[in-house]
Structure formats: structure tokens, C-alpha cells
């Protein structure tokens, strides 16, 4: 299941500049947009809000003490981290403290020693401002953080990177056809060495739900397991001195905890991962997922649901839907029933 080296990743010869940026329309995949509902907050009607509790501080000199109390109160949750905590009145006579967005029906308890008024509810922006226009609209409701560049913003693709992706998709399709020949469903997934880190190990897995008599042995979960199994033998305490192949490359992410995750890695998969696998990939902190065959009724990357797009999840990964025939990749032999979870 595990492929130890990345030697199969030869980029086809090309005389043009490998560093040239490929325009989006010439990429072998279509980017699945993850932020559509956050993009259009350019009119006051379109600004999405959430109810929150606030309290006026009649004497602005008490603001610091009130902030201190808020920090220790447990009301200060990350759900309002895109908002400033204090708003000063335009005339400077008082300030207002934002308390919490939870328990909308029960007013939070306030300290008696701070001389605060009764808390009240108001509508505040649900997310940070992405444009100057939305910032102005949101500031009118409550002082909001301006975050024009956000995580998950599409990155530029070089010609070399596009060729790397094509080679990876060819490889994973090959594996899926081999799986079918062995009596499995023709589904496979592949985590190649990144183009800028060719010495990193790559991981290849196929769907094994038939041979293992286990309905959950899907290709994406199997590749996550392959990665775990290989890193388990290289954990800090038991690094084999002689096993050069299994020693983590020095340039690999060495931050605590990241060695067993898919952080900074791209995953190529023949079929859109099901909801279970999409969430497994999110738990594993994968950077991007490229799939060839959309699964409209069961997929978790835009089909039945779009897991990294959900509000509340703590990680986002980019999704690329492979364009028909791009990179010479054919879907022949990859047919599965549309009600299968892949």
C-alpha cells in the first residue's frame, strides 16, 4: 500500500519556462470555491450578523478592569475573535464592551464591583471584513477586524507544478485500474512528494473494502493509515539508525504533532471522497485535494456536502475538480455506482 519513493514523479520534458505561472483556465483542474457566501457582503443587507451580548461602561476609566474581568469570565470565546472587544462612544462619554455570542436567551452575569449597566443584545458581524467596503458596513454595526487576505486563497501554479499534478493523477488512476483488476472497487488515492521537496516520502493506497470485508476501508482513509504506519516507526524514541529510507527528511515539517498529519501535502484521488473521508482528510489537515470523478450524491467535497466549506470547522483545504481529459487522464475503467461512498 505504501510507495516508499517518489521516483515515478518524472515531469515530462518541456522546453518552456517551468516557473511560468499557469492561468487558472489552463490548469488541469477547476478550483472548487469554498467562500462564496462570505464574498458578497458589499451592501448593508448582505452583511451577515449574529446576536451578541454587550454592556455599557458608563465610566471609561473602568474599561481596563472590565476587559480583565471578561478574560477570566469564560465568556470570551473564539467565535467573536473577528471583532474588537470595546467600542468607544463617538462623544467619548462611555465605552461598550462586547461580552459573548452564546446563550442568547440568558443574560450573562456581571461583576458587581464595576458599576456596569444591564447587558443588552445587539447584531454584530459574523465574520471579519474582506474588503474596505464591507469593513465600513461592518464597523457601523461593531468595530470589526479587517482581514483582506485569508487562508485558502487560491495560490499561483507554475507550469512545473501543473505537470507534477498531471503525473500524480496519472499514477493514481493507474493504481485504481490495478485495484479493479484485483477485484476491488477502482478507487485509489495518492500523496506524492511535493514538487519542491522531491525527497519526501509518497503514499499510495487503494480501496480495500472487498478484500478486507470492511465497508469503511476507503482509499483516502487507507492512505491516511499508510502515512501513520510509516511515521509510527520513525517516532522520536525509536528512530532506526540504519533505515535511511524511513528517516524523516530533515526539511520535513518537524513541528510538534505535525509529523503524522498531511499538513502541507496534496492528495490526489480518483473519486470525490465521501463525507467520512472528506472529514478524515480535514482532521488530518491536508492542504489540498484533487479528484477526477465527482460523486454528486455521496461526495463530501462539493457533491452531497462540502465539508471544508462548513461554518465552524477548524481547518480548510483547497479542492480541485479534474478537468475531463486534462493531462491525458481518462476515466475509462473507473466507473462505479453513483450511490457508493468513495
Amino acid at each position, binding site marked *: 500500500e505504501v510507495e516508499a519513493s517518489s521516483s515515478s514523479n518524472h515531469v515530462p520534458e518541456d522546453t518552456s519556462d517551468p516557473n511560468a505561472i499557469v492561468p487558472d483556465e489552463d490548469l488541469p483542474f477547476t478550483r472548487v470555491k469554498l467562500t462564496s457566501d462570505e464574498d458578497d457582503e458589499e451592501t448593508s443587507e448582505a452583511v451577515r450578523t449574529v446576536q451578541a451580548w454587550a454592556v455599557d461602561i458608563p465610566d471609561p476609566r473602568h474599561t481596563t478592569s472590565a476587559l480583565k474581568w471578561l478574560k477570566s469570565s469564560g465568556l470570551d470565546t473564539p467565535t467573536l475573535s473577528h471583532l474588537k472587544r470595546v467600542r468607544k462612544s463617538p462623544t467619548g462619554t462611555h465605552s461598550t464592551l462586547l461580552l459573548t455570542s452564546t446563550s442568547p436567551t440568558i443574560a450573562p452575569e456581571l461583576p458587581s464591583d464595576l458599576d456596569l449597566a444591564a447587558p443588552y443584545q445587539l447584531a454584530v458581524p459574523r465574520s471579519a471584513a474582506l474588503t474596505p467596503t464591507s469593513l465600513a458596513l461592518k464597523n457601523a454595526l461593531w468595530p470589526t477586524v479587517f482581514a483582506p487576505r485569508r487562508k485558502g486563497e487560491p495560490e499561483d501554479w507554475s507550469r512545473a507544478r501543473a505537470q507534477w499534478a498531471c503525473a500524480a493523477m496519472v499514477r493514481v488512476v493507474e493504481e485504481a485500474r490495478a485495484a479493479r483488476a484485483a477485484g476491488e472497487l477502482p478507487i485509489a488515492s495518492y500523496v506524492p512528494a511535493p514538487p519542491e521537496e522531491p525527497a519526501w516520502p509518497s503514499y499510495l493506497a487503494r480501496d480495500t473494502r472487498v478484500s478486507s470485508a470492511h465497508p469503511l476501508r476507503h482509499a483516502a482513509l487507507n492512505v491516511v493509515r499508510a502515512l501513520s504506519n510509516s511515521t509510527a516507526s520513525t517516532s522520536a524514541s525509536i528512530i532506526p539508525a540504519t533505515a535511511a529510507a524511513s528517516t524523516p527528511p530533515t526539511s520535513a515539517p518537524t513541528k*510538534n504533532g505535525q509529523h503524522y*498529519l498531511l499538513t502541507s501535502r496534496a492528495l490526489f484521488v480518483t473519486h470525490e471522497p465521501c463525507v467520512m473521508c472528506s472529514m478524515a482528510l480535514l*482532521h488530518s*489537515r491536508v492542504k489540498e485535494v484533487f479528484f477526477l470523478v465527482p460523486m454528486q450524491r455521496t461526495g463530501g467535497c462539493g457533491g452531497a456536502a462540502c465539508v471544508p466549506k462548513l461554518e465552524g*470547522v477548524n481547518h480548510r483545504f483547497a479542492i480541485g475538480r479534474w478537468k475531463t481529459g486534462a493531462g491525458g487522464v481518462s476515466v475509462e475503467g473507473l466507473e462505479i455506482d453513483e450511490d457508493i461512498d468513495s
Partner: protein
Amino acid sequence: MISGDTENIEEASDEHLAWMLQAMEMAEEALTASEVPVGCVFVRGGRSIARARNRTNELRNATRHAELEAIDAILANPALTPPSLLTSGAYPLADTTLYVTVEPCIMCASALRQMGIKRVFYGCANERFGGCGSVLGVNKGLAHPKHPPFDATDGYCREEAIMILRRFYVTENTNAPTPRSKTNRVLKTDIPSREPTPRHS
């Protein structure tokens, strides 16, 4: 008749509570092992057929949640999962009820539906990843062309489930991608009604 029904509901309620206390024991075991404290028990025909807890750190695999651990044990046991059952296309968990301390995440909820779980009881909601309604209703709200929906009921040992998660999160999770210093954190004991903030990892 009405009083009789109430009695039945109370008896059922006691039974659910008893199983959930066993799930809490598994969560305690996870906490002792420095794992995110989530535990579960799978019950079939009035007896426990699998108990498991989160093992993500130990196995270096972010997908090894309690539910998937237990499912693997059930499927690996031919007495619990006859090979003929799988080839017949029947659901392996059609007669099985799950008790889990925290709402199954989106991954586990999908796995449980693919396995045809009969019913799920959980302690507290999971606002980050909850797959039984908190973030996505994978158990029921989300349509699936094949797998039947299942009911998920919260509330048994809810406060205990929240408190054990808090006990975990006030200590430093040295296995987290970016460990945070938590020396200033205090263990809070107040629990707002139906507004928990646990996480399932």
C-alpha cells in the same frame, strides 16, 4: 395507561444512563492516556459488544476516534460480524446502539450511517465537528441515496462529558500541532444550558 408509559420511559432512561456511564469510563481511560477524552460503548441485544476510546495520539492518526476503533473491533470479530452477513449486503450495525460521550464528528457520523447503526445516544454536542446536527446533520438531515438515517439523542451525562473535556483542555496538549501555554487557565465548573463548547478531535 399514561403512567405506565412514563414508567417505561423512565426505565429506558435509566438503562441509557447506565450505558453512558460505561462510555464515560472509557473517556476517563483516554484522559489518563493523554488523549482527547471521548469514550464509547456499542450495545447489541442488551449487552456491550465493544468499548473504545480516542487513540489519535497513540496511533499517530487523527482519524482514530473512539467510534472507528470500536467498529474495527466489531468487524474483526466473526462472532459479532459473520462473514456471510457482509457478503449478503446487510448492515453490520443494524441491531446495534451506540453510546458515546461526545456527539459523533462528521467523519464518524458518516461511518455510522454507512454501517447502518440503529441508534446513537451522546452526552454533549460538538460545535466544531459535530455530525449529528451541530455542524452538519449527517445522521438524518443530509440525504443519502442508499443508507437509512438514524436518530441521535443527546443529554445523557452531558455535564460529565463537558467537564472531562475541560479537564483535558486546561492541561497542555503537547501533541497538538501548536501547543499553547495554559498555565493561566482555570477549570471552569459552570455549565450553560445547551450551550457547550467541547471539541472532539
